[in-house]
């Protein structure tokens, strides 16, 4: 019986090592690759990484979060519990949280009547987003105020003279 146990243990260690290597070296797939090869990736488990943008749209116990990887944004359907981990969503002056999603890619999802989406199995926040301070360009501001004022006076002149 001993050799059988050793064999089983060896297989287990081997499988674990494969998993370890897979996670250590697996790169998240980018959106262009996914969309250009949508039939190939359809129904497969993928890792997708990018910035959470816009709004979290809650749907019951789940939510839609759109993730932008710099090329395209893809809708990720995740548990609302996972969506709540997201603090910053990308918009003007806000850099959204960088999210790593492990989930199933669907070219045309049956559950969501044809959506191209990812159903999240695991969601990790890789990098917290932040708010950006807007630097006001004073030269531009001065120029804008002058141009706007001059234009407004001239147009007022047109109306006044009923031209």
């Amino acid at each position, binding site marked *: 019986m001993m050799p059988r146990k050793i064999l089983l243990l060896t297989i287990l260690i081997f499988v674990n090592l494969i998993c370890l290597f897979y996670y250590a070296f697996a790169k998240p797939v980018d959106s262009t690759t996914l969309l250009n090869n949508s039939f190939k990736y359809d129904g497969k488990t993928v890792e997708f990484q990018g910035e959470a943008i816009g709004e979290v749209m809650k749907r019951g116990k789940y939510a839609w979060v759109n993730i932008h990887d710099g090329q395209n944004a893809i809708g990720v359907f995740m548990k609302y519990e996972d969506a709540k981990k997201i603090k910053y969503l990308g918009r003007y002056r806000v850099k959204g949280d960088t999210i790593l999603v492990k989930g199933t890619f669907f070219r*045309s999802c049956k559950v969501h009547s044809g959506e191209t989406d990812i159903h999240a199995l695991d969601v990790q926040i890789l990098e917290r987003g932040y708010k950006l301070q807007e630097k006001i360009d004073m030269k531009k501001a001065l120029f804008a105020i002058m141009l706007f004022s001059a234009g407004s006076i001239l147009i007022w002149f047109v109306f006044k003279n009923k031209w």
Partner: protein
Amino acid sequence: MYNTKFKEGHIELKHVLYMTGKTLSAIGIVEIVAAITSLLYREWNMLFNLMIGIGLFFIISFIFIFIGRDTKEERFSWGAGMSMVALTWALGALISAVPPYLSGHFASYLDAFFEVMSGYTTTGLVLIQDLDHAPMGLNMWRHLICYIGGQGMVLMTLSFLSSGMRGLLKAYMGEARDEQIFPNVMHTARIIWSVSILYLVLGTFVLTINGVLIGLPLDMAFFRGLWMFLGGWDTAGFAPQSQNAMYFHSLSYEIVCMTLMILGTINFALHYFILTGNYKEGIRNAEIKSLFTTVTILSFLGAVALRGIYPNGLASFRKTFYHFLSAHTGTGFATIYPQQFLYEWNDTAIILITIAMLAGGSVCSTAGGIKALRIAILANALVNDIKKMIKPDSAVVVEKFHHLKEITLHDKLVRNASIIILLYIVTFSFGTLAGTFLGYPLKAAMFESASALGNVGLSIGITQPSMPDALKIIYIFMMWVGRLEFMSVIALFAFLFKEAKEG
């Protein structure tokens, strides 16, 4: 024809400049709405960009109005009226592109000009970068541009700023408005605006409620609702997020948008008839019949061509019918990515949707393309010719069709429709040839060429900032001539040539 005294002192040119100035000043006034949006959200740099744009509009308007101030009482000739329209659209787009360019969301001024021309012509092809981080004021301006363009720049001026002016019918017709609801052109313009504002309120309300129900916060549900209304009703296809209509992940939102696309593509005169209780017109109208027939046939054939691509009927409805409707109405809202047209749709489906994009919506609507009425006229002419062949030589065949009233099918009508269709086909072929010449596959070049010329906005992936500048310029030209239906642009070049020749 009116008797004008235009030979001396380039009075006609001065009058063109005067009317152009009036229209540009009206656009500047509308831009203030975008500036207020930026002010509300404290987007200071965008506010200053918009103020520069408004200032430019007002200063250039003043110069033009000042030059032509003594010609207010003049009447346009047809050539001058149409030239004024084409000139206003070109200049309006050039000035409107300044704030977007200054926002830093465009790789070049050409890209910003492309985007703005796409908005004014209600095309919807976009070159904006990082749209998901764009300021609210910029998004407001992009969508207001669609509204101005959809209604017609000159029409807007006619409605609000041109009281007492003469000869405005030519300018009205120059914006591809083939018919009047009332004999008075200003009355017609005001009716068009009233109909639009009624739908603006209703559409934005419905989309806002829908937005809240699908999980958007109230303020964003309102703004996204307003912008999606402007994109849908004006058959422009602009959306506030890079995913376009896919952003919302909602069937109900898509159905509301589809309704807006259909409403936007219907003739304003027909809207007026139906809103004032003449429901029968909606059933009898030849243009509606033509539109319904071509949308149904093309969508059905598209669904057959794409059988097996989508998992069930509902998915096919959201991906096939949605895009055929979006293409045919000239809207350009998309629920699939550009790559998916290229890699998932077969050649048959691409050809069918290209035909849908070229076919277009109704005359006197916000849609582009050949237009359903012209297709109806040609179809009726064909039937008429067949009848003539079958019947004895002595028989007189008179073909009539119903469009707001009973119309006899004269040769002149058929000739006019044929010329426009011919010009569309020639320009489409030229755009396709340019695309293939610059290295794109034939089906992609056809798709994008039809989208630009038909003022649709669906993309198969060609339209992006990295595309060749030459192709950007060609598409800008195609969007411009497609929206104004060629004649105004031809008139502008002829008019400028004439003015130059006369010294």
